[in-house]
């Protein structure tokens, strides 16, 4: 449905060409096919693309990294709706559509409509991509939360920002707390490079037959989307193989795949008349599929976690996304102070690296989990995973939110307080797990 060849270069009201790159002179003379480069892209296997293809380094923003990932991902349908700090990403995907790298694209009515249409596109058997942030994530949450149950492969990028009042557009990853319980696969990118790699790998993992699930690729808004970082990328003349609709764990709705009587034969869709156990086993299967994606995450992403300095470490910093970047610096400062500290960066939150954490945390004395949100969802995940497997004291903090940045000293202070027993100035004692607070016990005893 992309219109045939454009003869003139279109501009926006400011006079900028609709393509990000200045139009080549031949295009201005009205002869060049704007889709020519896209048509020349060569399909390569995911294995070659991810592990062998030569790469070149560029200094780009996260939004540009997302665009470059989509360019190489053979995406069919992409639907956009603006919200800061995501807008630029989906604008750039629009540029790809103009250039023929994405086959179909439109601006939806709002996020509920967008996420519903993504569900429709995925059911039709095509590869779909969209992105949103904060309030957009919550507005789209009902359809998003139903994607896994409908077994819809698709990739959605979340450029996390504040939700709730008072209004702010700043980075804050509270929305991930909601996404973690949808049944979708969730990755958290630390930087532009992660974003680029995870998006491309997400398409391939999402469409594996024994997975057949949507993947959410999250990053912390602005810190990653608007800042520049080095990103090593394969040649843009390469792309991943297209989605093979017949491969899914459930048939796509194209009236080509048996059974004809789809909603009758598959035990979904029967709602009021569906026995409770059918919903139950279906959800078990969704979460089992999340687990089955581990082997592909190992294969393509080199595991659910990345570690630095963890052998012999007394202190482990556990973090995801931008917090992991701050922790790298904190590890360096702690080491300079003579503290044996290491970092576990969690790349995949669903599936969660429970086994890996149990093993790596067994000897740690102190675990600090810095986060860019108020509620501390990651600390709860970590504590639940390693309970009974580690005697470490777990500091659920420090937390910054609403757009605050996280100075490295804040993390180092928690390490020092945690080790020395000094009271933390930012983390309340209720968020420190695995330690007995005599005052709290006395208070509790007096009140029973």
């Amino acid at each position: 449905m992309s219109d045939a060849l454009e003869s003139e270069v279109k501009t926006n009201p400011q006079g900028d060409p609709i393509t990000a790159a200045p139009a080549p002179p031949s295009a201005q003379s009205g002869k060049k096919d704007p889709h020519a480069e896209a048509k020349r892209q060569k399909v390569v296997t995911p294995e070659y693309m991810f592990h062998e293809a030569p790469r070149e380094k560029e200094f780009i923003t996260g939004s540009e990294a997302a665009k470059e990932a989509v360019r190489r991902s053979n995406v069919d349908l992409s639907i956009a709706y603006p919200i800061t700090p995501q807008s630029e990403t989906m604008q750039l995907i629009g540029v790809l559509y103009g250039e023929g790298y994405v086959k179909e694209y439109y601006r939806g009515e709002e996020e509920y409509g967008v996420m519903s249409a993504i569900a429709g596109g995925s059911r039709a058997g095509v590869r779909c991509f969209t992105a949103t942030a904060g309030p957009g994530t919550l507005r789209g949450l009902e359809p998003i939360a139903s994607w896994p149950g409908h077994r819809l492969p698709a990739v959605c990028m979340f450029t996390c920002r504040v939700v709730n009042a008072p209004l702010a557009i700043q980075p804050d990853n509270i929305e991930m707390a909601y996404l973690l319980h949808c049944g979708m696969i969730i990755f958290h990118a630390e930087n532009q490079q992660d974003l680029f790699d995870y998006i491309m790998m997400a398409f391939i993992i999402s469409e594996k037959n024994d997975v057949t699930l949507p993947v959410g690729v999250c990053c912390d808004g602005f810190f990653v989307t608007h800042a520049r970082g080095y990103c090593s990328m394969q040649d843009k003349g390469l792309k991943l193989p297209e989605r093979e609709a017949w491969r899914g764990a459930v048939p796509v709705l194209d009236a080509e795949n048996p059974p004809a009587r789809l909603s009758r034969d598959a035990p979904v869709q029967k709602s009021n008349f569906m026995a409770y156990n059918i919903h139950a086993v279906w959800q078990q299967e969704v979460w089992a599929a999340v687990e089955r994606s581990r082997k592909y995450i190992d294969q393509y992403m080199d595991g659910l976690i990345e570690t630095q300095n963890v052998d012999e470490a007394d202190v482990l910093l556990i973090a995801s996304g931008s917090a992991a970047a701050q922790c790298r610096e904190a590890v360096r400062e702690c080491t300079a102070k003579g503290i044996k500290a290491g970092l576990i960066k969690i790349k995949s939150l669903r599936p969660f690296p429970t086994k890996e954490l149990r093993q790596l945390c067994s000897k740690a004395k102190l675990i600090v989990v810095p986060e860019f949100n108020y509620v501390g969802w990651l600390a709860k995940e970590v504590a639940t995973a390693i309970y009974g497997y580690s005697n470490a004291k777990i500091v659920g903090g420090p937390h910054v939110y609403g757009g605050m940045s996280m100075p490295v000293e804040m993390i180092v202070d928690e390490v020092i307080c945690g080790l020395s027993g000094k009271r933390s100035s930012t983390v309340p004692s209720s968020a420190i797990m695995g330690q007995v607070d005599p005052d709290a016990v006395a208070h509790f005893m007096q009140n029973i």
Partner: protein
Amino acid sequence: MSLNYVEFTPGFDRWMPKEYRDMVHHGPFGKKTSVSQVGTFKEILEEHPMCAGCAMTLFIRLAMIAFPNPEDTITVGTAGCGRLAISQAAIPFVYGNYGDQNGVASGLTRGLKLRFGDKPKDVVVMAGDGGMADIGFAQTLHSWFRKEKFTTIMLDNEVYGNTGGQESGMTNKGQVLKMAPVGKKFEKMDMLGMAKVAGCAYVATVVPNNPRRVESVIKKAVLIAREVGPTYIQAYTSCNIEYAIPTDKVMEDAKDVENDRYKFSEYLSDDARQCLGELYGYKEYLPKPEKTLAKS
């Protein structure tokens, strides 16, 4: 059109349930069926869990007989009574979330177009008045404004049937219902007017007591949506339970409502007329020979 998917792999025929075999051998796939032939072929929709005498079910059944290419049709529904019947039919059905039907259908139609080009793949939305005019309002209107090529059918029972009889935007002013304890305070929403404003190529109202007319509007709407743009049918499909219509009076009620506020109406854009006349042999829509010109 791919009929392979309704046929059996050689040798498997006799192991399939009888009902399925009947569907393959005597169903409407790949044939032209009509409401006048009911009883001579196996229908796409037979069993359903709807209330006895529910006019909505009758309408859905007729609509399915009328689909021009049932083997290449995908229905999209939503929460509400209708999907309980639609989901039992022998053609693929999508249910996502309440009110998302026109959003889902937009992505589905575009996706199918990407994969199958001009090969007909008809997407038909059927949803209740609440699902379409209230919770799904924005997506319905926007799909029309965007000129998405699929058919939207409102099963208008003028009430939230499935949740037990609450007021909807399509309820008539003054009607007492649950959540309208002193009567609805505003007019029935003019979705027909909105469909025209939003650019639907075909807009029709219909009641189920005239099967041939139901058949005719469904066929036109699906064919026009395939070639031209969005089409909208608003069907009065009474809820005999919530409006306490005795089962044997359902057709009488439909007649009364037809006379009162649901007169048959049909609007076609010029492109829609041309499409039916030139591509699908509807002679009545071909341009009339210009008599005045001949005279001069």
